[in-house]
């Protein structure tokens, strides 16, 4: 296996994995240092940029493909600050993002980490679809109240849950103003294989009874330089994801500068007045690609009725 991947994603700017920077700091000794980490060779190479601006090539297995342990997962990917931009003008409530998310995290059908709302701020205004993952608040009420630090804010802006530490007091659920959290009320029904897999807060899998789960912003994917499933599953390119420190977000097809996008489209953060400082930005639903009614496709009558009542839509 001598080939090396040309995959542009593997071309990473700087120490993508926790510790990679430290390892690289060891100078030319990178590979020998890496082998100490007892990780598997995958044969696939990726490039890393040292802080001094030198490019080194390391085996992907050394830096990205091991699920992060509970302590490692608390650190956050160095020098990153993950953000998401959701373009409401393009959302038609297709819910493909949720399907992708549920598939990727092996979630049972009712466990929804992304929720969909039909919002209408007042009766004169027109309704718009509003998908909502965990907003990964920078001043997260959920993290403040956790008695054991089982939910925590990382340096890269991601709010994670350590399901091995969570005592299930549900205080974080009461504290989250955005209803982002769900509880494992019973033994999660999983494939045997999933249940046996090594747990990592970064994959949020396998879930554990009596503890809390939520959207995790897919740090395991970020480690691999890959996009979260919601971003890649959305047929309309609604989700942009990226690193604010790199000033770039991508929806899989387009890569744009984060600062320019939120400036030109007048992005806002949901319920900013709560002081939660979310990491998720919304682009207002102007010049919409779809009529909101398209979003009722595939919903049950009860659901449609509920959405209509909430958005105060009269027949």
């Amino acid at each position, binding site marked *: 296996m*001598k*080939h*090396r991947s*040309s995959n*542009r*994603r593997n*071309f990473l*700017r700087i120490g993508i994995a926790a510790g990679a920077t430290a390892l690289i700091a060891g100078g030319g000794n990178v590979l020998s240092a890496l082998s100490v980490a007892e990780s598997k060779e995958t044969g696939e190479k990726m490039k890393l*940029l040292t*802080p001094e*601006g*030198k*490019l080194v090539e390391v085996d992907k297995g050394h830096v990205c493909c091991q699920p992060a342990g509970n302590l490692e997962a608390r650190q956050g990917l160095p*020098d990153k600050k993950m953000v998401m931009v959701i373009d409401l003008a393009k959302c038609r409530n297709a819910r493909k993002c949720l399907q992708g998310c549920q598939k990727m995290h092996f979630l049972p059908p*009712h466990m929804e980490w992304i929720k969909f*709302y039909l919002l209408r701020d007042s009766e004169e205004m027109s309704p718009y679809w509003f998908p909502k993952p965990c907003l990964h608040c920078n001043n997260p*009420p959920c993290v*403040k*109240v*956790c*008695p*054991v*630090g*089982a939910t*925590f804010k990382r340096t890269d802006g991601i709010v994670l849950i350590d399901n091995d530490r*969570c*005592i*299930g*007091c*549900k*205080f974080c*659920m*009461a*504290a989250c*103003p955005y*209803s982002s*959290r*769900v*509880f494992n*009320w*019973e033994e999660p029904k999983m494939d045997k294989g999933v249940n046996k897999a090594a747990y990592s807060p970064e994959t949020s899998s396998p879930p554990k*009874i*009596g503890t809390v789960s939520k959207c995790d912003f897919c740090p395991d994917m*970020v480690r691999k*330089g890959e996009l979260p499933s919601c971003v890649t599953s959305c047929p309309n390119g609604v989700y942009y*994801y*990226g*690193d604010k420190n*790199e*000033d*770039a977000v*991508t929806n*899989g097809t387009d*890569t744009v*500068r984060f600062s320019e996008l939120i400036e030109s489209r007048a992005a806002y953060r949901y319920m900013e007045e*709560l002081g*939660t400082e979310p990491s998720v930005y919304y682009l207002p639903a102007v010049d919409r690609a779809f009529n909101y009614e398209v979003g009722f496709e595939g919903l*049950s009558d*009860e659901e449609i009725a*509920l959405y209509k009542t909430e958005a105060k839509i009269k027949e």
Partner: protein
Amino acid sequence: MYEDEKTQQNLHAFKPQLEKMSNKGVALIVFLLLVIGFGMYALYTQIVDGHIVTGMRDNVVWGLYIVNFIFFIGISYAGALISGILHLLRVPWRTPIIRMAEMITVISTMIGPSYILLCIGRLDRLPNLVLFGRIQSPIIWDVIAITTYLSGSIIFLYLAMIRDLAILRDNPVKTARWRNPIYRFMAVRYKETTKQKELLNVATDLLSIVIIPLAILVHSVLAWIFGMTLRPGWHSTIFAPYFVIAAVYSGTGVLIMVMWVFRKIYHLESQITKIHFNYLGIIMIILGAMYGYFTFSEYLTSWYGSIKWDMDVLYRLFNPGEYWHLFVFAVFIGVLLPIIIVTVPKFRNINSIAFAACVAVLALWVKRYLIIIPTLETPLLPIHDLRPEYVHYSATWVEWALTFAGIALFILLFYLFSKFIPIIPVVRTGEEKDYSRLRKIVFEKQMKKVIRQHKKSDAVIAGIVLLFILVSVPRAMSQDENRVQPMLKLEYFHVDSSQILTATLQAKVEGRFISLPGMEIVFKFICNGTETLLGKEITNGKGRATVAIPEETLATGGDKGLYSFEASFAGNDRYDAASVTATMKPLRLELSFFQKEGEKMVNLKALEPGPGNQWIPAENLDVVFYVPRTFSLLKVGQASIVNGQTSLEFPTSIPGNHLGYLTLTAKVEENEIYGNVEVSGTINWGKPLPPVNTIKRGLGDTNAPLWMVYTLIVLLSLVWFHYMYVIFTVLRIRHLGKS
């Protein structure tokens, strides 16, 4: 010792209670044990099956358990505040009721927190509270406050028992004699010497001073669990005092109920008189009025401000289809009825006051329900889970069973305790006479409180009845038996110095393109009619297979500087064979950085093979410049190659690493002649990243803010210093008793 007539009389009256157990008593115990046993069964179910057996769901995450928790901690106020204050003020009539009050405190402070445990999903992980406790969390405040409070109440109760224990030591019980050594041990050689008496009084006074602010703190902390969240109906600044007042109100109510019950079963008519009921009744309605006032203030403020979310909760409370009836009971009846019963002389008698207390206590339980449930049922964002149990909370049998088990345990412990030590202090110290004048100052105030409730005009919102119908549509999955012709795409990449071929295998199935993984692709290099095998690779999950082109292969040269490659797929039982060829011309890209008139520029040279093994400038070529980012390439510019080169301003506004190092990639993409060619270069001209913040101390961080740490240490050491001092005093009493 204690030869006075009153004490002897008391001893005579109470001894039989300790020694005999009536049949009714046994029956009561058996009944209570059954109720508790059923509760244990419910608990077992909950532990085995998980919290799914409760009515709690993702929105209403806390239910009856938390209601009971607040309720029990609330009634524990009886001892702490009532007996503490009555003791400090030396209120003369307090003696017969003070022990009951303290027992209520201790027992309910033990039962209350167990409800919090029931609410916790992972009981096995309780040690985490100690291992990883974060003092920024109100739950940790609660854990600390309640344990401290419970310890204090136990010591307080014990101090008040020492005299009775001493008299029981001197007059041993005749049944269940195992109790006698316990009495002896616990009586700490107390002989009512002047010195011992003084020490005991000091210790009791000290503790009653400590226990009052502590009790207030405990209930404030409890209120803050709710107040600290951003939830309508909870996020209120008056929550702490509101909870404190509601707690004392209910505590007094329970004390009156307990007095009434024991007065009946132990025939204490001569001890607990109408005076006690009247005075406590008055205290109760003063508290009731204050509770009404707080309630009024709370709801008036949020109604007047009419923030959307506050209104959502208010509508629920005022909606006859939802909580209006409970609200009327908890707020109007629960306040007004006791006030009417106690203030109107005609209605005022022992039974009616006990009834009023009963109403007040029940109303307050309901009020706690109304604080917890409607708020949780009204999240800031609407609920879209159609399963009815996710929309509306209704407690299941498990929760009710455990609720009643808690009440049964309360009664049981109380009853057993009254068999261990007289429910009314036997020893009379006679001090009550000295302080009778205080009674005038404290309790003979007249107060009238008119509570006007604002009228709520039709606050009716039609309740939405949700039905959840599960219709599973079995979808016939028809297998397409036809063979499919796959599509094979071959791309040539020249990245820096290495060259790669990538083949992508896809097929159109049911109108959609799918990638074919796990297929073998054969790569060949074709030169002057001869084929060289480059390798066989298996496609990955994206249907892609990649092979590197060895330098030597290319060195063999091509026809007119052109190289041909072939990728082929042999086909299998479902897909036909496919093959594709691509012809490329090598292209050399060279990236360099330079500064011109202070401007930072990038220069790109493009060369292709010319006659005589020369590299000559390439023409008619579009290049795109990118900056690699975590997930993808960010386009920063594009240019056409003129005369073999082009230049571009370096994008200095794009962030690099901490030292500003930024990589720039120039690409020729999907060019018909050259394929994909790219080259990268790195230079420290990007925007440097700001340095990372060092350890922070905040509410959301691992480390707590320092003021919080100091406050906690100061408060805890203050309280525990007093406890230690009191324990030390008890030891001294014991020591003094030796001589």
